[in-house]
């Protein structure tokens, strides 16, 4: 949006002095003349010009734009060995220019060359090693803190513990219910379609039972809680890191692990197995509904078939997985939160990292436990 009269600069040359006549409103909202273009018009006869002067008698409003024009004139004068006289300008301009030049320009060093492929690989290994070491150290600190709690050597803030318990019970039930129900339904659909081909549709209850109790109940609960609670832990502790609350604990000689991490870990430790059992149950109900609808099985037939095949160790395996997943989520969330940087984007990065690391480790741990279960014939 243009306002006022246009900014204009005309050149008048007399006796080696190029006088720039300024008129109109010189504001940032106007298209502005460039000094180099104006003075270049006299370039054909460079020997004639010795001085650049200004006439601002017709100048109306002005702001920084005029200061920029003056800097352009000075740069041009320096390049072409011309003297720039500022006497004809508003008196504030040279003063502002002096203020702008009061601090010397910082010379920024050249950006370091991008490291070569091998160097980058090496750096990744070093970073990975440091990160793994930090995780192990942190896990050790949490274990020591837990040991101290058992021996009553530390006082834990039980209020924080109950907040985590509440958040992971009633707060998490809707999403766990929905996902577990859908997973149970999906397993049952798969079973109905595949097993029917072999005339073994009745065994769908086996598939749902084994699938939910050994694998999907704990796995899906772990993934949900990594996205929900792990992210929340990272964001809470990350925000506390930025506002120096963690430093305040440390400088008072209070362990942030005991006061902040332990209640969260313990809350998850208690709630994850319970949520896993709940997810198992809801998933099995989902599978039963599909079986009743597509195979005309009764609830008694479904559960009868399921209990024939599924043993207590199958259910216990899932619960143990839930406990381990809870520990992974807690450690990933709290560690990433405590490792948060100091800029505004750091909390976001810590949260993302907590979720990604949590889910990856959960799936990895699941594979390892399945392998161990197969070895031990559980």
């Amino acid at each position, binding site marked *: 949006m*243009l306002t006022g009269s246009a900014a204009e600069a005309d050149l008048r040359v007399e006796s080696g002095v190029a006088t720039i006549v300024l008129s109109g409103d010189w*504001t*940032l*909202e106007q*298209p*502005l003349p460039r000094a180099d273009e104006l003075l270049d018009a006299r370039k054909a006869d460079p020997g004639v010009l010795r001085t650049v002067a200004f006439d601002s008698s017709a100048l109306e409003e002005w*702001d*920084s*734009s005029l*200061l*920029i024009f003056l*800097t*352009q004139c000075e740069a041009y004068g320096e390049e072409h060995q011309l003297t720039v006289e500022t006497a004809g300008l508003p008196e*504030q*301009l040279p*003063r*502002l220019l002096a*203020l*702008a*030049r*009061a*601090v*010397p*320009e*910082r*010379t*920024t060093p050249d950006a370091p060359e991008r490291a070569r492929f091998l160097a980058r690989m090496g750096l990744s290994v070093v970073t990975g090693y440091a990160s793994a070491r930090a995780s192990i150290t942190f896990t050790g600190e949490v274990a020591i803190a837990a040991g101290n709690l058992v021996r009553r050597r530390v006082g834990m803030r039980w209020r924080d513990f109950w907040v985590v318990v509440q958040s992971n019970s009633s707060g998490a039930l809707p999403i766990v219910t929905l996902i577990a129900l859908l997973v149970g339904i999906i397993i049952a659909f798969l079973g109905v379609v595949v097993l029917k081909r072999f005339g073994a549709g009745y065994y769908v209850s086996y598939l749902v039972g084994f699938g939910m109790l050994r694998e999907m109940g704990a796995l899906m609960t772990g993934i949900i809680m990594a996205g929900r609670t792990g992210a929340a832990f990272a964001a809470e502790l990350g925000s506390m890191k930025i506002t120096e609350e963690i430093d305040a604990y440390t400088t008072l000689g209070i362990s942030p692990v005991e006061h902040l991490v332990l209640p969260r870990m313990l809350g998850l430790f208690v709630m994850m197995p319970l949520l896993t059992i709940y997810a198992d149950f809801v998933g099995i109900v989902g599978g039963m509904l599909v079986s009743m609808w597509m195979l005309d099985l009764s609830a008694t037939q479904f559960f009868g078939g399921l209990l024939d095949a599924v043993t207590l160790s199958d259910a216990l395996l899932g619960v143990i997985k839930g406990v381990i997943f809870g520990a992974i989520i807690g450690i990933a969330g709290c560690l990433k939160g405590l490792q948060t*940087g*100091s*800029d*505004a*984007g750091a909390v976001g990065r810590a949260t993302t990292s907590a979720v990604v690391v949590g889910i990856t480790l959960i799936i990895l741990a699941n594979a390892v436990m399945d392998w161990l279960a197969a070895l031990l014939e559980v």
Partner: protein
Amino acid sequence: MTPAVTAPAVIAPVISTPTTGTPAIEVRGLTMQYGDLVIMNNLNFSVRTGEVFVLMGGSGSGKSTLLKHLIGLKAPAHGTILFEGEAFDLENDATRKRVLRRMGVLYQNGALWSGLTLAENVALPLEEFTELGAEAIAEVVALKLSLVGLRGFGAFYPSAISGGMRKRAALARAIALDPDVLFFDEPSSGLDPISASRLDDLILELKASFGTTIVVVTHDLASIFRIADRALFLDIDKKTMTALGPPAELRDNPPSDEVHRFLTRSSEGLS
């Protein structure tokens, strides 16, 4: 020796309303509230064009809240705020933008956008509100960064510089559009005395060169006596303004014990 000071029986006569100059900002009967909690009552004052106007008062007296009202971040519970005679209508987007275009704000912590370099921070208002080309914008950015003593720092991200430098970069952003009115929220907090003094110099230079109206929220007495043409005192106990005038006059003839204690940095008479 503390001069004998008594609280005025009637608050209104203490406040000298401006008799000269066009008001850049006019506040009429402003009441500020957070929910049902009244912060300040019945504020009436005007900020003259081209003056440095300081909002002062004890911690929690509502200075920053008043600033938020002046820059349109909070709506008055009662009363009106006029910006050069125009009501600051928060609901009308066109009016709001037109008024905001003429304001610059330096927030207490700088509030630089962390995902942008310093140059990009300063360039953004120019890209949004002017039709300048990329080359002209780069020149304006370089000039503004130079004015705040940050020549050559354009490529840095806010996280890579100190708190004082962040504040100066934020000032470069605030003056990017050569605003008519500049608001400063605690400009010297977190700055060393030299940087704080340099900031005061810059405030005075902006006033002298561009005729910028400047509203400053501050506790810094040295700064108040150096830069302020007039100062407004918010009294946390009375929940209203109890003094308005040149700071030296208020110090020499304090209208209340609170103003006297504030301007002489004294806790005398407090139980």
